[in-house]
């Protein structure tokens, strides 16, 4: 089986600071590929480069064999990438439903329609409602996104990514700041997404990572220091000293 998303020998530096140092990784269809590492390891920067919000200095990114290294972010989204943000990033003045309906609209590539009111369109609202249901936000559909709780905003963020029906989802700490119950629900949800798309999961919650990941890549100081199955990573001596601590 060939990789759906392939990162080849990526390099990026900010001045003297090397944040991505020859990173390669393959994301297989239907798999959750976790990227872990200590704070400042370069995980978010890697996600930015895969999504196109930062340009790498060198290296190639392929989606299903197609070189997308130079594509603008919105083009990558159209090609099948979706992302959630480490810093919660919803549209605060829109209702939860409108947030997701916009994602459906974006997916349909139909934002240059000037005359029909968007609010009542079943073609946007029905799929949006279905996604809200899936992430457990149905009851909040009419609420203004800015007034949702932090955990609910994280769910909404995920719903927006999902509504785009992506082939690969890039999730940067989707569990950050969620309470224990929300975390449990989100973990179940993320696990159930495997059949919908492949996932690159950046996450500090190690219980969640070992529960969800099919494969793990460990970054430290911009470099891949280990890669393998959760079982292999758990046993890896270098990873233990660099990151995991003795608990694992």
């Amino acid at each position, binding site marked *: 089986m060939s990789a759906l998303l392939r990162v080849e020998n990526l390099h990026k530096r900010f001045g003297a600071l090397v944040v991505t140092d020859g990173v390669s990784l393959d994301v297989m269809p239907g798999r959750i590929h976790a990227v872990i590492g200590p704070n400042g390891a370069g995980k978010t920067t890697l996600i930015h480069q895969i999504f196109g919000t930062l340009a790498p200095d060198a290296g190639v990114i392929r989606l299903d064999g197609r070189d997308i290294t130079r594509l603008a972010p*919105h083009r990558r989204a159209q090609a099948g990438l979706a992302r959630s943000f480490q810093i919660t990033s919803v*549209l605060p003045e829109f209702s939860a439903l409108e947030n997701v309906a916009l994602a459906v609209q974006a997916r349909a590539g139909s934002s*240059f329609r000037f005359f029909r009111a968007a609010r009542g369109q079943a073609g946007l609202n029905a799929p949006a409602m279905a996604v809200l249901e899936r992430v457990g936000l149905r009851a909040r559909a009419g609420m203004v996104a800015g007034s949702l709780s932090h955990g609910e905003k994280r769910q909404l963020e995920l719903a927006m990514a999902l509504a785009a029906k992506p082939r690969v989802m890039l999730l940067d700490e989707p569990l950050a700041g969620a309470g224990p119950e929300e975390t449990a629900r989100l973990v179940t949800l993320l696990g159930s997404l495997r059949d919908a798309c492949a996932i690159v999961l950046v996450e500090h919650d190690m219980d969640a990572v070992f529960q969800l990941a099919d494969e793990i890549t460990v970054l430290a100081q911009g470099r891949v220091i280990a890669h393998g199955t959760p079982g292999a990573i758990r046993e890896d001596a270098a990873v233990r000293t660099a990151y995991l601590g003795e608990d694992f």
Partner: protein
Amino acid sequence: MKFVVPVAIFVALALIPLLAAVGVHVPGIVTLIASRVMIFALAAMSLDLIMGIGGLPSFGHAAPVAIGAYAVAVCDAAGVQAAAAVIPAALAAAGLFALATGAVALRTRGVNFIMITLAFAQMVYFATGSLADYGGDDGYTLSARTTVFGLDLLDAKRIYLTTLVVLIAVYVLLRVIAASRFGRALAAIRQNRGRVQALGIDAFAIELAALVIAAMIAALAGVLMANQAEFVSPAYAAWGRSGELMVMVILGGLGTLHGAVIGAAIVVLAEEGLGAVTQHWPLVLGPFLVLAVLFFRHGIVGGARR
């Protein structure tokens, strides 16, 4: 409920010709000032599309107004008064201007966007001043007003009603656009541009289209303005004009569209009123506007709504 205020505004504006029609004497100055308000409101409303809904604070919106006005002058000098030629020329010129300058200005955000739109408007100001065939800095007096399919809809008697009809039509059009998929995307870009792009929407294209639409409406206001004054001059593109339009939108309430009419009324009336008292009226109006903007962050319309 949503439409009570805008309907009240348009009914109030319709009262002037209605009263005149039933024989009430309406002083000419009232009609004149009210039609000035409506023409400015038209331009301010179009600015509200990009600034209030799209979050693009253009400090150069007088430029497309002036372009529309100069389209009238250029056609007039060529002996053409037909709206069927004048209006397409005005819209096309302003639309192309917005397309070219917008493509550059949209590479910047925030204060830089304000400065670069101002710079482009200044270019129009100086360019119109150098048009020797059209009076240069002194401006150009029209030989005749624009006619619509041979009808004098823009003559001194009828321009008020024509402007009112255009204003209402544009208001409805902008309401429809704001509620459409395009309008939703535009409002979303204001809230979080990066997020919208991450969804796969080309934010730049949406913003550029909004700039072009707004410029075309502003050009329409310019056509009316030139006809009302029977005169055009580089002052139409002066930075003070662009500033006034911004103040109208902010005073009326960003993103409300009909607030632009209220903002235009306040600014025009304040200028007329203060102008009668002191020639230093900008010194009085300036601080007042700063206070108004500070304390009515949602504008008059928004402040009343709370």
